[in-house]
């Protein structure tokens, strides 16, 4: 079911919310005593650099979309990659949090793949529900899959940070939202088991893992169970797309971050009759689209969103 502890826990954790600004410091102390000491000592520069890196999140490129608000989502995706190419601090890699395509068509996926390739960076994908229509993601996984199994989920490590890439858009049930399923939850629990609590965790998923707005499907039915496995970790950052706007929620040690699309905006939760593409004028469109830079310094993530307006 959806997260049933959202309200109470949020109210309860106001102080933790306020403390977020210093969470990185707390984490550094909790996460690595040697490192915390080393920061004040000669040679600390090297240690800090070992876990200092940035990566860029791209989401919801919807190649194949042809609605009035943006009939050329391939052009706006290219603009996003022009921005990425111009970054002074080159990202270590990219993530794409799904809805690469609009209709799961091979030609749409290939167009996106060619544009993403221009960055010359390793790219980690998770599928959106638009990438799995009709074929359960077969065409998507053939191009972007990293899992050794057909299931699609996987994990990787970079700079001391553990990344978990989840699939919550398959086997969706009538009346529900996103779905991880028992197999994936079991895998996740096992995957995290060997990690020390001081390991920063970054979760990639397409749909929000928390009940952001369930009546528009902006939730993951069994997301709370997945998050339960992460409670012992000092720093958990959940990056997702799906809702084409920036939303943030902090719940104890977990920050939830939804990203902008590179194709079209969607309305704020509950604003209007449904979650379809939001009509904006051509001169405003690019202010509603964007990419996200995530910078890790000594295990602490800082997030900066940049619109395509520049």
């Amino acid at each position, binding site marked *: 079911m*959806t997260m*049933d502890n*959202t*309200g109470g826990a*949020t*109210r309860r954790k*106001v102080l933790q*919310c306020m403390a977020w600004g210093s969470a990185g410091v707390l984490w550094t102390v909790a996460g690595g005593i040697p490192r915390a000491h080393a920061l004040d000592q000669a040679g600390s520069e090297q240690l800090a650099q070992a876990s200092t890196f940035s990566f860029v999140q791209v989401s919801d490129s919807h190649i194949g*979309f*042809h*609605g*009035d608000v943006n009939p050329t989502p391939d052009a706006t995706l290219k603009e996003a990659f022009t921005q990425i190419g111009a970054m002074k601090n080159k990202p270590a890699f990219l993530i794409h949090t799904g809805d690469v395509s*609009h*209709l*799961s068509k091979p030609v749409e996926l290939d167009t996106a793949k060619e544009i993403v390739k221009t960055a010359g960076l390793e790219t980690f994908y998770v599928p959106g*529900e*638009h990438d799995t*229509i*009709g074929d359960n993601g077969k065409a998507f996984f053939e191009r972007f899959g990293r899992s050794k199994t057909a299931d699609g989920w996987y994990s990787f490590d970079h700079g001391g940070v553990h990344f978990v890439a989840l699939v919550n858009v398959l086997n*969706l*049930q*009538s*009346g*529900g*939202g996103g779905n991880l399923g028992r197999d994936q939850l079991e895998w996740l629990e096992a995957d995290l088991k060997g990690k020390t609590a001081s390991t920063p965790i970054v979760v990639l998923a397409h749909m929000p893992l*928390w*009940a*952001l*707005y*369930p*009546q*528009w*499907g902006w*939730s993951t039915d069994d997301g709370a169970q997945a998050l339960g496995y992460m409670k012992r970790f000092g720093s958990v950052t959940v990056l997702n797309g799906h809702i084409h706007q920036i*939303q*943030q*929620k*902090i719940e104890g040690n977990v920050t939830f971050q939804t990203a902008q699309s590179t194709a079209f905006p969607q309305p704020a*939760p*509950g604003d*209007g*009759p*449904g*979650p*379809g*593409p939001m009509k904006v004028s051509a001169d405003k469109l690019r202010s509603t689209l964007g990419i996200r830079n995530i910078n890790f310094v000594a295990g602490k993530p800082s997030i900066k969103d940049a619109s395509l307006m520049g």
Partner: protein
Amino acid sequence: MMKLLGIVVAGLLAGAGGMALAHDMAGMPGMSQPAEQVAAAEPNTITIDNFTFGPATLTVAPGTTVTWINHDEEPHTVVNVGSTRLFKSGALDTDDKFTFTFDKPGTYQYFCSIHPHMTGTVVVK
């Protein structure tokens, strides 16, 4: 940063209410048509607007072909609920249609497999 709280709580309540409503409507006799009424193509149509199937419950006679039309800019699908796959459309892009002929009486619940909060019912009797 806490402003979503109210929305989330309201969303859970509204979501539960919406589901109950859909089930209630499936059992309502109000929308049934006289058996002798000839099923024209247009009346047996379910439109998709703003992520909603309309009407939420459609009652037809056995042998009727029902047409779904997607008016959204978002693609949708039409898939029957249940372990047996009776009908499943491909991606319906804007103004795309899907048809299915209901031969046997019964209550058929369906949903959009891309946006599963979208549900509807066809009653055949």
